[in-house]
C-alpha cells in the first residue's frame, strides 16, 4: 500500500548498497526513494535519511572519513540534530561515527579478514523507530560484509552506552548468548549497532536491507523497515 513516507539514500562515490537500501525502503513505503548524490544541491525535506553500505572514497585514510567531511553530511548532521531519523548501515555506520553523530569508531576486524556471512543479532533496545517492530531480546539473522567493523569505544563511553540502553544490536549465538565465539570482528561488548542519545540515529554494521524479502533467503531485516513506516508514516 503506498504511503506518503519520504526517504532519501545518500550516494557517495564507492557506495554499493545504495540500491539495496532503495529497494528495501520502496517495498514498504510504496513511494519512490530519493537517491541523493553527495554533491547535489539541497537535500529535500524527508522523513528518513539512509547512509548506505559500500566503500565511499575507497576507504581512503579511514573507512568513512572522507564521506563524513563532505558537504552533504553537514546537512545530514543538522537534520539529525533536529530529530530526523538517520539510518547508517555498514559504511554508513562508519560515516556516522566519523561525522560525530555516533560515539566510538569502527576499526579493522580483529581477525584481519573481510567477513561476509550471516550472523545472529540480539535486539537489545526496541524503543527506537528502527527497532520497534522487533521483540526485546529477539534473536535475528542478518548478514555482515565488512573489513572494518570492529567497534571500539573507551570504557567511559561504553558504560554510558550500556547504562542508557543505547546498544541496539549485539552479536550473539543462535540462543542469544553474546560471547566471543559469536563476535565476528572483535567489537567491544559484541556491539553490532548503537543509537544516539535521542534515539533518532542508528548505526549498525549488519545489513538488514539484504534480508528484507523472502526471495533473498530471509526476512529478519524487514521489521526494521516496517517499523520505520509505522513510526514515520
Amino acid at each position, binding site marked *: 500500500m503506498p504511503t506518503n513516507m519520504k526517504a532519501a539514500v545518500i550516494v557517495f562515490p564507492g557506495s554499493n548498497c545504495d540500491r539495496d537500501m532503495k529497494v528495501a525502503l520502496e517495498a514498504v513505503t510504496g513511494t519512490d526513494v530519493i537517491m541523493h548524490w553527495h554533491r547535489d544541491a539541497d537535500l529535500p525535506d524527508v522523513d528518513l535519511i539512509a547512509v548506505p553500505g559500500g566503500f565511499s572514497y575507497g576507504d581512503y*585514510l*579511514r573507512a568513512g*572519513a572522507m564521506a563524513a*567531511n563532505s558537504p552533504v553530511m553537514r546537512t545530514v548532521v543538522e537534520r539529525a540534530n533536529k530529530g530526523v531519523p538517520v539510518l547508517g548501515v555498514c559504511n554508513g555506520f562508519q560515516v556516522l*561515527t*566519523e561525522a560525530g553523530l555516533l*560515539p*566510538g*569508531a569502527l*576499526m*579493522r*576486524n*580483529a*581477525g*584481519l579478514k573481510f567477513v561476509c556471512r550471516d550472523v545472529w543479532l540480539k535486539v537489545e533496545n526496541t524503543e527506537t523507530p528502527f527497532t520497534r517492530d522487533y521483540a526485546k531480546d529477539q534473536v535475528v539473522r542478518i548478514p555482515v560484509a565488512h573489513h572494518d567493523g*570492529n567497534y*571500539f*569505544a*573507551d570504557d567511559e563511553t561504553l558504560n554510558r552506552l550500556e547504562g542508557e540502553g543505547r546498544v541496539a544490536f549485539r552479536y550473539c549465538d543462535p540462543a542469544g548468548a553474546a560471547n566471543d565465539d559469536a563476535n565476528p570482528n*572483535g567489537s567491544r561488548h559484541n556491539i553490532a549497532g548503537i543509537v544516539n542519545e535521542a534515539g533518532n540515529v542508528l548505526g549498525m554494521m549488519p545489513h538488514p536491507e539484504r534480508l528484507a524479502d523472502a526471495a533473498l533467503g530471509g526476512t529478519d531485516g524487514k521489521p526494521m523497515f516496517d517499523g520505520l513506516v509505522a513510526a514515520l508514516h
Partner: protein
Amino acid sequence: MKAKVHVTLKNGVLDPQGKAVQHSLAGLGFAGVNDVRQGKFIELDLDETDAAKARATVEAMCEKLLANTVIENYSVDIAEG
C-alpha cells in the same frame, strides 16, 4: 615548508595489524620483537612560511580529518626550509 604527520593508535587500543606483523616477523626468524604498532605517515607541502602558523594549521587538519582522535594520536613535525 613541509609538515610530517605521524598518526598512531592510542595506547590501549588493540592493533590487530601490528600483532599480525609481529607474528610474521617472528615467523621469519626475527627474534626479540616485543611489540609492533602500525600507523600512518603523511607528508604535506605547505605554502605557509611561518613554522608556528604551519603547526597550528596542520594540528587543525589532524583534529578535523587526518586522525580520528577517538582511537588515534598524532604528532606533527615542521621541517624548516
